[in-house]
């Protein structure tokens, strides 16, 4: 399993953000570099890309608060 985390340097301070949208459904196959989610912090929207190809497993739901470095999903490369 490959972890999908909020990058440590995605925004400038230590405030919380949230997952604004998952752009795939749970269990969908994603490719490396696919845009899989939008993350919002204050009034800025960021793109979250898949770090690997495989089945997407969400750990955090839409609108749940997230912090930088937090695990939000996993990608299972197993067939």
């Amino acid at each position: 399993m490959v972890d999908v985390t909020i990058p440590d340097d995605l925004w400038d301070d230590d405030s919380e953000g949230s997952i604004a949208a998952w752009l795939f459904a749970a269990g969908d196959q994603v490719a490396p570099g696919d845009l899989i989610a939008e993350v919002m912090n204050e009034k800025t929207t960021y793109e979250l890309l898949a770090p690997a190809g495989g089945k997407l497993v969400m750990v955090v739901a839409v609108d749940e608060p997230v912090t930088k470095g937090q695990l939000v999903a996993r990608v299972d490369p197993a067939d």
Partner: protein
Amino acid sequence: MGYFEQEIIASIGAIEPTTVVDDRSGNVQEMVDRDEPPDWPGDARVRLWRNDRCIVATRHQARRPSFADARQLSELAGWPVALRRSGGTTVIHRPGILNVSYRIDVNRGESLPVERGYRLLIDLLAASLAKLNMRCDAGSVPASACDGSYNLRWNGRKLAGTAAFISHQPTTTVGVFHASVAVEGSIEDDLIAIRRFEAALHSDRPYEDARHVTVAEAMGSLVHTGIRSAMRS
């Protein structure tokens, strides 16, 4: 285009030479979508643009179950709804509101300085309005619509809201930082439209008209103050 809008556009162009006034036509959604990096005009760092009267919601708001009903209600009231990529909540576009979009590109893999992007945008706007003798700063305006940390303020009142989206392009990461400057027109009518839309979306908040200001109102106040000062001296 009114006098103040012309002056602001001229000031911004003088400060930032790559500024483009984007006069391409389109429907309200097409106009918003031109902030997307591939649609950006040439090498411009700043894009100035205007839109027809509309509500501009976020894609996050559009995912609420009540969005379709809220959209229909707003359209029936004469306010079509467009969607934007950046964060925040509901804003207004219309004649009398000048949109200022500021673009920053960094190489893929580099960190894009988000606070710096907002500061560059705010500083550009503040410098252009200083030429009209308006002293502006940045900060939150509680009880204003779509509040945030980087509103452009005049006398503590919200003159422009800002928001941004960060997008990965093939070789770069692009930040588009956007402000909607209320140059003239009715704040009261704007907030009526926002309240109607957000109430239908079941996400309404209390906003106060007096927390907002337009450039025209501010200039009227400055002229009045100047006249009173002159009469006393």
